[in-house]
């Protein structure tokens, strides 16, 4: 579904991602982990087509990413954005409806199928109790869920998330993780998420990709990737701290 081959990305001459090669198959659930500045967000931006690699190729669902236009990418890959500032009063359902932009009629807008997808996403993510409210007045956690509902409404085979649990309390973190698991298991959605919390990653994702200083240093099952010496090397912390919760 997602294939990176020898991808290098540089910001201002400094490589943010170096010679990254990885393959995420259809229906996989993968967490990208690593310390700050390891290149996790860069990796997501490359996968989403926002950053062009200096060298290497990126493929999405069998096509080279640089040959797809934005709309074609948006139909294949939904990204849960970082919490945005909304300039105008916008209801929760209006935010979720934005997920249908790549599908709706360019002139007439949403069709009945789009409205059904919005209603389904609202129910799936469980934000029905927030309908009618101005999204700017919600708590950070609620807004996070609304944005997740928007990405679900986008109905793309790949769902990409950057730190989806960062503003959530533990219960909501687990709810989001369960939801991602459910989307993955029931709908076959391929999930690629950047996570800071190693315990969440290890518990809810069968495959982890560990980045360090722009390189993929480990890729596999949690027990293998989070080996004690690697945690000590990459994160510079006592492995017991991570393992206790995993």
């Amino acid at each position, binding site marked *: 579904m997602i294939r990176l081959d020898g991808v290098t990305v540089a910001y201002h001459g400094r490589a943010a991602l170096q010679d990254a090669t990885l393959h995420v198959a259809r229906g996989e659930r993968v967490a990208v982990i690593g310390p700050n500045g390891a290149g996790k967000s860069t990796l997501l931006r490359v996968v*989403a*087509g*926002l950053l062009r690699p200096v060298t290497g190729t990126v493929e999405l669902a069998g096509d080279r990413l640089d040959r797809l*236009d*934005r*709309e*074609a*990418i*948006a*139909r294949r*890959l*939904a*990204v849960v*954005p*970082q919490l*945005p*500032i*909304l*300039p*105008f*009063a*916008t*209801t929760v*359902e*209006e*935010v979720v409806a*934005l*997920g249908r*932009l*790549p599908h*709706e009629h*360019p*002139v007439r*807008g949403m069709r009945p199928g789009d409205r059904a997808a919005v*209603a389904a996403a*609202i*129910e*799936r993510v*469980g*934000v*029905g*109790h*927030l*309908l*009618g409210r101005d999204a*700017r007045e919600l708590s950070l956690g609620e807004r996070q869920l609304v944005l997740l509902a928007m990405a679900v409404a*986008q109905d793309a085979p790949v769902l990409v998330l950057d730190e989806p649990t960062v503003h959530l309390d533990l219960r909501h973190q687990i709810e989001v993780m369960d939801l991602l698991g459910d989307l993955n298991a029931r709908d076959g959605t391929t999930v690629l998420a950047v996570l800071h919390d190693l315990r969440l990653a290890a518990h809810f994702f069968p495959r982890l990709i560990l980045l360090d200083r722009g390189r993929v240093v480990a890729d596999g099952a949690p027990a293998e990737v989070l080996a004690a010496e690697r945690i000590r090397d990459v994160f510079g912390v006592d492995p017991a701290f991570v393992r206790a919760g995993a």
Partner: protein
Amino acid sequence: MTSGAGILATRRGVGLRAALARRPVVVGVTGLVLLLFALVTGIAAGSVAIAPADTLGILGRRLLGLDVAVTWPATAETIVMDLRLPRVLTAMVVGGGLAVAGAAFQGLLRNPLADPYVLGTASGAALGAAIAVLIPVRTLILQFGLLHALAFLGALGAVLVVYRLSRVGATAPMTSLLLTGYAVGSLLAAGLAMAMYLSGAGLRQIFSYLLGGFEASSWGRLAVAAPLIAFASLAILLRARSLNGMLLGEEAAAHLGVDVRRERAILLTLASLATAAAVAVSGLIGFVGLVAPHVVRLLVGPNARLVLPLAALLGASLMVGADLVARLLGEIPVGVVTAVIGAPFFLALLRRAHAGYEL
């Protein structure tokens, strides 16, 4: 997980705005009625009052070819057809165009205070038009073409400068936008003052750009402005999807399938074109581009597909109303009337923005 019944129950409790958002037709029809009312009142009222029935009769006879019994003096027909109708239609077109341009600028900059006036687009267009007045061209058509071309270049130049300088990251924060708009606007005002100083015989015309108004309206001028503004407004409306995508910012818009760089360039150009055509025919008239989209958003929400046409309707009605007030007060500049309505509105918005979420 919330059940379907739960969703319905909460929907029943939504406020007026959400209810109206589902009834854009009601708002649209109200807007049309308002516009028609403004049209008839704008033509009927003035220094010589013409009965609304006669106004409708003249319009029906002359525009629709209806067989209406003539109950009015010939002068009434001249006043309606040669003076007031082109004037009211020009006000409508300009008001609608400025409202659409304002809505587009606000959406692109993700800032409710952006409008052709605040951004300096209108001043840039006025300076361009003033420079065109200074250039001695004898052929009328050439002069008209030059006027519009330079107004467009001025508008585009001003908006590009303000846009580039006021952006911090992906958005234009309020303070940065207002200060940059102010600085660029001051520079353009200085340019206009210089143009007036150099103008000699053209002084009156340049001065009229500065004041803004519709007293010089004619069918000829309308014939140039209307197609330009209609084209730009329609083309912006066709890109409503891109403006909707920008609601969450440029990066999110890209994730939602919007080619941000391309759409931004096209929309900035189109909004500048609408502004320039409006300024070339009526001079600087502020605040309509700010007020109309904002009021519409309060009624139907931020969906550009609804906001753009409804703001055009409201902007057109507002401008006809403002022009009528200006005429009834003895031909005071219409910009004075829109400023009296718009400036407090702007300040209220600014206060709310400071108290709220945007900064």
